[in-house]
């Protein structure tokens, strides 16, 4: 109601103000029995109708009276001259119209300002869309802020997301702050269909209450129930239902063949359902098949189950964390044989926070960068507008001299700014929508929640906010400067005057632009160095011309003890293909980030001495190191004989060798590993030492890698590594055929060049680098344009002065030096401020850098040189123009 009154008081003629109260009376009467919202709506309808009618009416009256006056007729009574109260809607409309006319009269200038602002606003909106989708929008589950993921620190495996069956049941029993504790397994490959129809799809198992905990209801059929303990049932994804089963609604209740066994399809999950777990979650959004997970209280030594906790409405995360830590300590006390003397700590991470933690630092860095580009753009626009206002100084001064109040002039300039900012904001939203698609096409693939990165109402609200802030930021200085012009001064100087204060404001703007550019350039430089370091990191293996593919066995047809032999046969058949130079096999794909980690010890005699040492173990076929392109330092690779006789041998990397037997030759030494595998003798003899291959990922602190013969495991799945002389991708079909002929009974899948896996592991750095570099590029261009435009303006202003100087004998060189000097002084000021800022802000970047210090002097120096060169060029052009001035012409002007 108050806003309505305000609007009417500013729209109605002063002699009609009684209407304000009467309207409320009309409404009170009319909407006596109506709903509050209906009454509000009715009131506003009335207010706006009256405001509109009276605005039109007064316009009509004015025209009427003018016509009569011109016709010599009588003038109608009534307030015709604007009073202060009269700064109303209609005069606001007049101002807008006038501003629009003014801007359209200079289309080039207006378009430039709009484009510059859009260059700043567009990226800000695009990055905000990502921030919004990732960090601000709640996860698509019921009460997502009450969900947590259990992580454990186990023997130095930092914040591992998996726990064991027994632990899950203990948490369910003892965690009072939780209303539900449910778990999901890591994903695995399942084979759907029979015979030639077989396709590989990802599947996993989840506890019976898992979907209830998330608050996810199947769109068809049902979720898991108690009776499913006894049955073979499966829940399928909407994608599988649509792609594979033709969206057949009768599918629910039918059986389908999975891994050559019949399963009942009990339900179809909703199309938008995605399980999103944080780093190391092991369940991708590709999972199509969900089987019931039955918990075995006796199973305590396999920590593979991702466990979600729903807090009770009363509990806080702090309480739950304390509870869970206490329960963990109890477990360690109750089962000393399980945990040995490893350090174990249970923790609970809020699900959303856990998910976005790895990308948050990079995202905030980018957000900072776009904010700076926005500031530079505003700054630049302010510079242009200031020059524009100064050129209009005469007009504005004249208006003031004729009685326009100062705030009317201020208003006028601010409205122009607002119009420009609005156009730029609209353009920015469009640019952001287009740019976002490009951005997401380049994203490294590990960015969670890509689907929720859309321009929604929050983003639009942000866009409107940014536009207004931008408008204030770039509009206020020119408006202030324009309105403070002393009419007499300006008019006396014939518009040529150069107020020192205005000059200072402009100079400050340029210095700020250069400073922001320096900060961004240094940031981009540091990321370029990071990328260089990542590229030049010695992987310890050679990924060129190596193809990786997953091979799976029909585990019911091939006995456990014969599986390694089948894999070895596959490898040898592929090796026999022309062009193939080496073939190996490994149970996990390199760089997939998934290894099999456990403790080891050089002390083979004492029973339980592990010393908290952890290594990453990989079961391998013969000659795998050769296929991987790894480098042996001493000894030999795992050979066929090792597998045939299932010898207890291992190849270790030099980091383990140096840590355990410093200065000694480890070949022939024995060590024991904490692995329970039916065919593995835990005491192993070292037959080879290799250079550490960075097959975990390219960046994390390396963990020692140990290769063990595949014959000691009964796994039915592995990654084949095929090295060829050239262009291994062209061999895919032949390799598939060879695998099929070997008789695995299952198709191969996940075919990828090893180089692609390496590139992917470096992807996020490349992504940030790409964005940072383009932002820095834009920033440098904008600030160069800023220096150029200010200097060009100055040169024009000084033309008269230059003419006098030259007439008095100044050489062209002097004039050139004078003007370049002015530009360079501004640039140096900006560099000093920017360098100080970068030194201050560099710490923020630390988390996304690799192999370069955040205050790397060489990078700082490089950025400064780039800015200096750009500033030099930007100053040179107007300076040359000044030096070419003909003194006679300049003086005559």
């Amino acid at each position, binding site marked *: 109601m108050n806003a309505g009154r305000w609007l009417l008081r500013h729209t109605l*003629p002063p002699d*009609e103000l*009684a*209407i304000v*109260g*009467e*309207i409320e*009376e*009309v409404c009170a*009467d009319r909407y006596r029995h109506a709903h509050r919202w209906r009454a509000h709506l009715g009131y506003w309808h*009335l207010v706006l*109708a*009256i405001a*509109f*009618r*009276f605005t039109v*009416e007064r316009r009509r*009256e004015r025209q009427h009276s003018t016509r009569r006056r011109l016709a010599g007729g*009588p003038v*109608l*009574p*009534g307030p015709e001259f604007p009073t202060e109260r009269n700064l109303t809607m209609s005069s606001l409309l007049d101002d807008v119209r006038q501003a629009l006319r003014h801007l359209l009269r200079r289309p080039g200038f207006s378009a430039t300002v709009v484009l510059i602002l859009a260059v700043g606003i567009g990226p800000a909106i695009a990055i905000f869309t990502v921030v919004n989708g990732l960090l601000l929008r709640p996860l698509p589950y019921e009460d997502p802020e009450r969900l947590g993921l259990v992580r454990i620190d186990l023997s130095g495996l930092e914040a591992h997301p998996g726990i064991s069956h027994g632990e899950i049941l203990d948490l369910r029993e003892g965690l009072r702050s939780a209303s539900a504790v449910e778990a999901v397994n890591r994903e695995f490959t399942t084979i759907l269909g029979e015979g030639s129809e077989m396709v590989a799809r990802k599947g996993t198992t989840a506890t019976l209450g898992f979907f209830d905990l998330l608050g996810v209801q199947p769109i068809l059929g049902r979720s898991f129930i108690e009776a499913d303990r006894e049955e073979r049932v499966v829940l399928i994804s909407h994608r599988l239902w649509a792609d594979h089963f033709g969206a057949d609604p009768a599918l629910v209740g039918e059986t389908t063949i999975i891994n050559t066994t019949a399963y009942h399809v009990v339900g179809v999950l909703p199309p938008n359902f995605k399980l999103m777990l944080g780093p190391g979650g092991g369940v991708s959004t590709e999972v199509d098949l969900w089987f019931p997970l039955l918990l075995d209280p006796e199973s305590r030594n396999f920590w593979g189950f991702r466990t979600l906790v729903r807090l009770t409405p009363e509990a806080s995360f702090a309480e739950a964390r304390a509870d869970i830590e206490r329960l963990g300590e109890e477990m360690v006390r109750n089962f000393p044989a399980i945990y040995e003397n490893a350090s174990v700590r249970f923790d609970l991470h809020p699900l959303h926070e856990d998910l976005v933690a790895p990308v948050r630092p990079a995202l905030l860095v980018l957000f900072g960068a776009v904010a700076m580009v926005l500031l530079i753009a505003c700054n630049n626009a302010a510079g242009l507008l200031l020059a524009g206002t100064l050129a209009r100084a005469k007009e504005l001064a004249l208006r003031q001299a004729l009685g326009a109040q100062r705030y009317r002039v201020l208003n006028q300039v601010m409205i122009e700014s607002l119009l420009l900012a609005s156009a730029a904001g609209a353009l920015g939203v469009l640019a952001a929508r287009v740019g976002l698609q490009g951005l997401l096409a380049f994203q490294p693939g590990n960015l969670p929640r890509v689907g929720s990165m859309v321009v929604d109402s929050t983003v639009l609200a942000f866009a409107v906010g940014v536009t207004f802030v931008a408008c204030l930021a770039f509009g206020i200085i020119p408006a202030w400067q324009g309105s403070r012009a002393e009419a007499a001064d300006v008019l006396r100087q014939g518009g040529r005057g150069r107020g020192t204060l205005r000059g200072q404001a402009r100079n400050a703007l340029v210095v700020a632009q250069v400073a922001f550019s320096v900060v961004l350039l240094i940031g981009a430089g540091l990321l370029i160095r990071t990328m260089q370091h990542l590229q030049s990191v010695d992987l310890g293996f050679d990924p060129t011309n190596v193809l990786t593919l997953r091979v799976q066995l029909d585990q019911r047809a091939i006995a456990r003890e014969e599986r390694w032999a089948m894999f070895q046969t596959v490898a040898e058949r592929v090796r026999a293909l022309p062009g193939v130079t080496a073939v190996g096999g490994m149970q996990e794909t390199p760089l997939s980030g998934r290894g099999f980690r456990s403790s080891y010890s050089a002390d083979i005699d004492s029973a339980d001495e592990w010393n908290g040492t952890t290594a990453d173990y990989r079961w391998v076929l013969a000659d795998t190191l050769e296929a991987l392109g790894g480098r042996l330092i001493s000894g030999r690779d795992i050979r066929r004989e090792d597998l045939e006789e299932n010898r207890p041998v291992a190849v270790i990397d030099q980091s383990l060798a140096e840590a355990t037997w410093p200065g000694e030759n480890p070949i022939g030494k024995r060590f024991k590993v904490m692995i329970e595998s039916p065919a593995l003798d835990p005491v192993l003899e070292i037959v080879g030492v290799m250079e550490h291959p960075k097959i975990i990922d390219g960046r994390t602190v390396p963990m020692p890698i140990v290769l063990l013969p595949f014959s000691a495991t009964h796994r039915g799945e592995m990654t084949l590594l095929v090295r060829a002389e050239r262009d291994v991708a062209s061999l895919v079909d032949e390799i598939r055929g060879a695998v099929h002929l070997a008789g695995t009974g299952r198709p191969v899948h996940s075919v990828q060049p090893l180089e692609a896996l390496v590139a992917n592991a470096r992807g996020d750095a490349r992504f940030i680098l790409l964005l940072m570099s383009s932002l820095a590029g834009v920033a440098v261009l904008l600030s160069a344009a800023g220096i150029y435009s200010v200097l060009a303006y100055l040169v024009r202003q000084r033309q008269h002065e230059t003419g006098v100087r030259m007439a008095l004998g100044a050489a062209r060189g002097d004039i050139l030096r004078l003007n370049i000097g002015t530009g360079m002084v501004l640039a140096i000021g900006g560099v000093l401020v920017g360098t100080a800022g970068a030194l201050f802000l560099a710490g923020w970047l630390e988390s996304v850098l690799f192999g370069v210090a955040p205050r790397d002097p060489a990078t700082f120096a490089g950025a400064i040189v780039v800015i200096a060169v750009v500033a030099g060029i930007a100053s040179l052009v107007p300076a040359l123009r000044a030096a070419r001035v003909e003194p006679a012409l300049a003086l005559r002007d």
Partner: protein
Amino acid sequence: MAMNKTSENLGEIEELVLLAILRLGDDAYGVPIIHEIAGRAGREVAPAAVYVALRRLRHKELVTSRTSAPEPVPGGRARRYFSVTKAGIELLAQSRQKMLRMWEGLQPLLEKR
């Protein structure tokens, strides 16, 4: 003023407003005027139209207005009461005459239907 006010034309709403003011007598301000037109002529007029009509009538000096003291209750409002001037009444009479003359002899035409 040399203007002959009686030569002014009345709009339909203006005429309705003038008649409503006459009917209401001392109680003629915005809200009852709107009600009177709605109640008697069966016509829902937009309040904005009524207020604009009142303004025009005032400028044509067909009505005069006086503002009352605020009602003696908390939040009581000052109201603007209207009364029709002599010129207004003259114009209404002319308008009525004009209409009656136009209707003369047409009564049977309506009754036939």
